[in-house]
């Protein structure tokens, strides 16, 4: 395996001790200072000295919105239309960007000049749970280690993105231990329903009682919280302080879709996904660095002919409105929007749908320094395999990490003492960047 940590150094007892102590810091929570975790980051090389630091696109994306289409989006019926035997029920349409889409994506076609389609994604896993794990983390699922999602990697290297808001949020799905081996405070905040927003944010008692409760809490808490200079107790003191701030913060408006006009809400579509995209836009505007939005319903074995119209339309409206809004607000160049899915679907269309097909599929990037109106790579004429070498999920992660200014191909040591790299040693696809 390739690594920057020479094994001789680790066989040296003193060096081994110091790295174990570093691991210990993370595992005992010594470094868990809410939202301001610099200790762990300081232990690794500064992002600026990474091998990818000088390459095109590095650090252009200050924010990332990661859309996960759950079930496996058929590439042939969306972003990589085919003629002949593989053709699906939807007609092919042209875009001004020069590449074609299917008629299921009319709104996306209007923003085609702002997006980049990767048509040669390739992987080996055709089972939902493990493929979705792979696309979410860049690593194959193992029984012995839990890999973090990109938001946690970013918090590790770059610190917190906001003083009051979490750095990572996932909309429409649970967080699924997205912090991996990093501290639990890096775990994404889950917003299961975009319209309900953040849970448990209102106090239980009326304002007067609440303020007297807090006053008494401050008095009675003092003796214990102050006496032993324990780092973990102090961390909790800070979490309480952060929570008080959050409860009265103006940033809470980030979670409140009621602040958007009816016209805007309608543009994103009334679906949970559409409203999730709108929420994602509000969150990144308020300082959340990484937002994952999930959209289900893509596992169309026998229902592609009947359901693609509706599922595709939900995605199409939400996604296109998100790109348009970010552009209108001048945020698109500094916000990377990723559309990912666990795998593609088979070229042979039978019984109304298609089976799982990880060998080739499409993902889409937009903003954050990525080329506009661009197609990267191609699948063969049938849409069966990549034409030439494909882009692996690890490469996709390395590419997003690169855009976000994280050091790729640089080891960190997990608390279990294992060297790991964001994007699992893969190189970023720098051809995607303008």
């Amino acid at each position, binding site marked *: 395996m390739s690594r920057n940590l020479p094994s001789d150094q680790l066989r040296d007892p003193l060096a081994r001790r110091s790295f174990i102590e570093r691991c210990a810091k993370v595992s005992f*929570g010594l470094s868990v200072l809410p939202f301001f975790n610099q200790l762990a980051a300081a232990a690794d090389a500064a992002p600026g000295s990474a091998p990818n630091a000088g390459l095109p696109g590095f650090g252009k994306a200050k924010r990332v919105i990661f859309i996960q289409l759950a079930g496996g989006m058929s590439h042939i019926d969306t972003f990589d239309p085919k003629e002949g035997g593989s053709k699906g029920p939807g007609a092919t349409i042209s875009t001004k960007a020069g590449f074609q889409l299917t008629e299921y994506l009319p709104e996306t076609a209007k923003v085609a000049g702002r997006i980049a389609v990767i048509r040669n994604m390739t992987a080996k896993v055709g089972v939902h749970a493990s493929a979705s794990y792979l696309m979410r983390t860049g690593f194959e699922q193992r*029984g012995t280690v839990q890999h973090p999602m990109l938001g946690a990697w970013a918090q590790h290297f770059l610190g917190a993105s906001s003083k009051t808001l979490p750095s990572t949020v996932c909309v429409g799905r649970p967080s699924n231990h997205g912090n991996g081996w990093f501290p639990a405070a890096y775990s994404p905040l889950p917003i299961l329903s975009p319209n309900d927003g953040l849970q448990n*944010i209102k106090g*239980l008692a009326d304002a007067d009682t609440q303020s007297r409760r807090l006053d008494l809490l401050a008095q009675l808490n003092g003796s214990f*919280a102050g006496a032993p200079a*324990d780092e973990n107790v102090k961390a909790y003191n800070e979490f309480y302080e952060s929570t008080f701030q959050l409860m009265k913060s103006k940033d809470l408006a980030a979670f409140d879709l009621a602040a958007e006009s009816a016209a805007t809400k309608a543009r994103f579509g009334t679906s949970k996904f559409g409203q999730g995209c709108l929420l994602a836009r509000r969150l990144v505007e308020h300082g959340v660095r990484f937002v994952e939005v999930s959209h289900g319903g893509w596992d169309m074995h026998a229902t592609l002919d009947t359901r693609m119209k509706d599922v595709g339309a939900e995605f199409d409206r939400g996604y296109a409105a998100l790109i348009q809004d970010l552009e209108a607000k001048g945020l698109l160049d500094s916000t990377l929007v990723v559309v990912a899915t666990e795998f593609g679907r088979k070229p042979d269309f039978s019984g109304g749908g298609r089976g799982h097909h990880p060998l080739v599929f499409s993902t889409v990037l937009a903003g954050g320094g990525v080329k506009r109106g661009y197609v990267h790579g191609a699948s063969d004429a049938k849409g069966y395999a990549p034409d030439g070498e494909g882009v692996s999920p690890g490469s996709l992660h390395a590419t997003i990490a690169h855009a976000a200014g994280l050091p790729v191909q640089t080891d960190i040591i997990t608390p279990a003492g294992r060297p790991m790299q964001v994007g699992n040693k893969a190189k970023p696809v720098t051809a995607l960047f303008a």
Partner: protein
Amino acid sequence: MFNWMADLLRVKDTFNKGVPAFTFEDWLKARLAANAPWDKLVMEMLTADGRLCDNGAAGFLLFDAEMPLDGVSNLLTTFLGTNMACAQCHDHPLAEWKQRDFYQLAAFFGATDQKDESMLAQIRRTVGKDDSLPKAVVKRIGDVNAYRLEDTAAQKLTFPKDYKYKDAKPGSPVSPVLITWDKADAGLPIYQVGAKTPAQLRDGFAAWLTSPQNPRFATNIANRLWKKNLGLAVLEPVNDVDDLTQAFSPELLAHLTTVMKSARFDLREFQRVIYNSRTYQAVANPTPDLAKGPYLFSGPIVRRFTAEQAWDSLVVASVGASVDNVLLRRGDDMKLMALPKGPITAVAVHRVYDTIKEAGLLKGGNGGKKTAGGSMAGLASGYDGEKPQTRNGLLLARASELPQPSPENHFLRVFGQGDRLLADSATSDGSVPQVLQMMNGAVGRTVSDAKATAVAAAAGLSSREAQVDSLYLSFLSRHPRPDESAKAVKAMAAGLTPADLAWVLANTREFLFLP
């Protein structure tokens, strides 16, 4: 002990593909209640034979039925503190373990089969087209009966086809060989494994692993229990004790190993020794800065409640000690789905279907899924003895008597209960969502309600001083100091109620931390 061990052994209601595994947790609860010694427990898990629905002990190995090599990796970490996960795919980058070492060890499990595919094929053949049986129910019956540990006629593990080292041929059969930590280890009598037939491989391995002579078995569990009680292990991290010289105090670790052996792996006895030590009874220190040197255990360290300790405390404060009569046991539901041994007949499958239908396990029409822990309310039929109360949408039972693990947004998970996908996955890190749950969520509401046992008990007392004293005892297990009592009494005189004080005390750091 159950919660701690459930985290270590990955006790989970269902395995990765939704296969129910309730018999495993029932077995563990029963064995812990009987205080079965650790070597015996581990021996029972590693040598278990038969179906999971008949033999709960089989659950440990069947957890990794789909990934048996990961299973070997996991059991080495869990029982020996040996970190060979890297060596599964390549020579360990930081330690001496070679990929060949891993495969030679895994070969002891190469004559074990986990899933009865031929039985599943028989079910498909006999009732696959029978429309009177719901498909989901047939699948569930198949799942429950298919997972089992069975010895095979031959050891079938081979080196991977892409094996890249010179010490073995790619694709060639692996011969089982035990690992040593020290050259002298190989001379120990336990290294003479008397496995004459493939069927004896696993038993031979288990005898070596659980022996007091094994160079790491006693040390591993002693080190883990020390951490459980003192807040920090003698050798960190607990999942890598290969190099004993890295311990904060190798002498202490050696002593604890001796205590464990003389206690004959009786974990209750071992902990009794810890609790009676001056070290354990000393005042807790703040979490030490290990960068400045090793911690030499002048006492325990200040540690946060585990998620289960916090939850159980709040539940007892809300509904009282009668919660101990609420016991979740769902293994019997699985036993009802057991098919008779021998060839599968349509009649037998129908009989099982009728039985579980009669037992009410099919309500909701999804093949008994309601007992899988999907919905908290749906658990009701799984409770033996008293049923738990529900308040503010919370099912008020101890953590051990709730789904394993709890759903992701539950208080327990937010406070760090592990996902049980990996061993040792519980955490005690803080987060804002935790504080929001405690201050504003259903738990905060329940514990500060006039109905809560601790609140009602205090409200029944005549003086404010007595009320304050009672709530301090309930939440912090101590009397208030005079200044604390005075502050609380003053706030109550100005209008706060015992319920308000319950809320305040539940939100103090002292409630969450063990000083």
